[in-house]
């Protein structure tokens, strides 16, 4: 409770939620094609291109503001001064286009298309053909679109979500795992452990710590998940809400499983030492394992069908980060998820036995760091 109430924790949670929402909004801005605005000046006959340019460019997310310019010289000076981005002058079928340094590519393509159309219309008129009839006919010509991979966009979204899930689990497991280790050391360093053990059985104490801190983590993750989901769907970073919901539920499930597994290891590690200063030495290797499986996800994501990655994602030390990520991408098959959960529960049972034994044997030993083998044998 003291930890939950601490200002640090509250601020941290709010900050994390704000960061997450901000990150998603940023993603939304980067991914959506931003509308650019261009000032285009037209001289004389070239003004015939103004309206068509504005209409066509708008469909390409370029907002064209047209300006009528009296002559080329004043137009050039306006371009020079930056008041105009582009100056179009001369014959509409072959106009001169003046810019300061470069021409917006969308605008360039649109302009040259328009100019070709003007040239074509002029040629048709010269050949005695009615351009409107021909153009109407041309307008009916269309492509027949065959989509081979309609889910490509969704797939990309899933991958983004998956990496996010893996990162979130990695951070949560390391953070809350270290809270557990620090909590165990705190009780050992203050010797309150002696009072506690005289009234609470060691197993209750160990599990109380794991469950208490786990609940706190679960709550925080739940809040983050909710904020993330709302932000992501509102900004259309994720179009299909079910992707997000599955990802969040998967992440929560694997946080519970992974946290119990790793928290037991962290607790056993914490019980070996008596001072907060030694915490890094025992939590380091455990943290490395979690970081390692997070990093492994990038390889797994690139090779989604590789048997090694599939295997790793089902093994207890790696599953808590790999499996929820693979579930988010939709790569994980149902049987793989089931096998991973069964193995994970087995891993928790094994760790419960192993870590509890180390914890019981070392939690009352104060002084220098307890050697792992001694803790195992139970030599007091």
């Amino acid at each position, binding site marked *: *409770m*003291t930890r939950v109430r601490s200002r640090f924790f509250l601020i941290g949670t709010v900050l994390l939620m704000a960061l997450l929402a901000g990150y998603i909004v940023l993603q939304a801005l980067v991914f959506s094609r931003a509308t650019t605005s261009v000032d285009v000046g037209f001289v004389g006959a070239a003004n015939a291109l103004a309206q068509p340019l504005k209409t066509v460019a708008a469909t390409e997310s370029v907002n064209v503001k047209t300006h009528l310019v009296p002559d080329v010289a004043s137009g050039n000076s306006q371009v020079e001064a930056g008041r105009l981005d582009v100056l179009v002058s001369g014959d509409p079928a072959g106009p001169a286009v003046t810019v300061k340094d470069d021409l917006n590519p969308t605008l360039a393509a649109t302009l040259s298309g328009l100019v070709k159309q003007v040239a074509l219309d002029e040629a048709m008129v010269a050949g005695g053909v009615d351009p409107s009839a021909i153009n109407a006919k041309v307008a009916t010509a269309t492509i027949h679109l065959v989509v081979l991979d309609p889910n490509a966009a969704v797939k990309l979204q899933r991958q983004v979500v998956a990496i996010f899930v893996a990162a979130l689990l990695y951070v949560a497991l390391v953070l809350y795992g270290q809270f557990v280790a620090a909590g165990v050391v*705190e*009780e050992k360093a*203050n*010797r*309150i*452990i*002696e*009072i*506690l*053990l*005289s*009234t*609470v*059985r060691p197993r209750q104490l160990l599990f109380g710590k794991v469950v208490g801190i786990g609940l706190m983590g679960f709550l925080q993750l739940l809040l983050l998940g909710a904020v993330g989901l709302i932000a992501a769907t509102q900004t259309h970073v994720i179009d299909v809400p079910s992707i997000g919901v599955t990802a969040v539920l998967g992440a929560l499930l694997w946080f519970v499983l992974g946290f119990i597994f790793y928290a037991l290891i962290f607790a056993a590690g914490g019980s070996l030492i008596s001072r907060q200063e030694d915490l890094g030495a025992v939590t380091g290797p455990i943290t490395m394992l979690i970081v390692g499986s997070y990093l492994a996800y990038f390889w797994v994501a690139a090779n989604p069908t590789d048997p090694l990655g599939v295997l790793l994602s089902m093994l207890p030390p790696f599953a808590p980060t790999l499996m929820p990520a693979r579930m988010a991408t939709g790569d994980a098959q149902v049987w793989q998820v089931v096998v991973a959960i069964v193995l994970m529960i087995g891993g928790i049972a094994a760790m419960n036995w192993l870590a509890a034994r180390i914890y019981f044997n070392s939690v*009352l030993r*104060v002084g220098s760091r307890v050697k792992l083998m001694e803790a195992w044998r139970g*030599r*007091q």
Partner: protein
Amino acid sequence: MTKRYGELVAVRNLELEVRPGEVFGFVGSNGAGKTTTMRIVLGVLGADAGEVLWEGSPIGFETRRRIGYMPEERGLYPKMRIGEQLRYLSQLHGTSSAEATAATRQWLDRFGLADRSGDEVIKLSHGNQQRVQLAAALVFDPVLLILDEPFAGLDPEAVDSMSEVLHERAAEGVPVVFSSHQLDLVERICDRVGIIQHGHLIACGTIDELRGRGPRRLWVDAPAAPSGWAAALPGVHVDRVDGTRVLLQLDASADDQAVLRAALATGPVHEFRRDQPSLLDVFREAMSETRVVAAS
């Protein structure tokens, strides 16, 4: 009970009894096995042999939960508020929420800490931390109190108020066991004392019993007596000469009245007094005896 740590035997065939309403002092050098014994009684450690009996039958978890314990190295959450901490520890020992709140208030009042209830333990002075630590052992109305060095580092006033509380508890029938290095304090506070050395209980009894255990000694001041006047008396041995005063050690066969008559025969006698050993003397005596035994 017996407890081994690998090769080292921390407690060897130790047997002692503490009675209801008794303040029992547990005395011994560092590493003698006091803390180990206490931890075994609490169930924090398991004994390799022997058992702990409560009212004649093996002590169970439910009884152990009602033991008030004060570990030697103080054990409280430094950043938890005092009131909250005491309530939590009280409930951990099986009281209801209302009982815990009432007991917390009662003990904080008793120790004059009522206005510090919302403070973190770390912000208190050493003496006040000690008081909170004792309160933590009392907030669930314990059936037995086990206190490891409760008086270490306390000023005389704090010692008095703490021992007053212990005697009150004892008067209500709660056995109180505490360990200490401060023998003068133990002598003053305890009803009975156990001396432990190398895991052995080498002496146990009331303060008077322990004092009486040693050889009978007499201080005699007979200024007119020739030196060596007492040496010839049967069963008497001169322990020390201090000016005209002599400290005589009498063995079982010696008659102190014969000594008095012999002294009076030499002239006036200004002092004739039974030498009462302090607990420290008893302790030293007991220590040297075991050393002799160990050597032979």
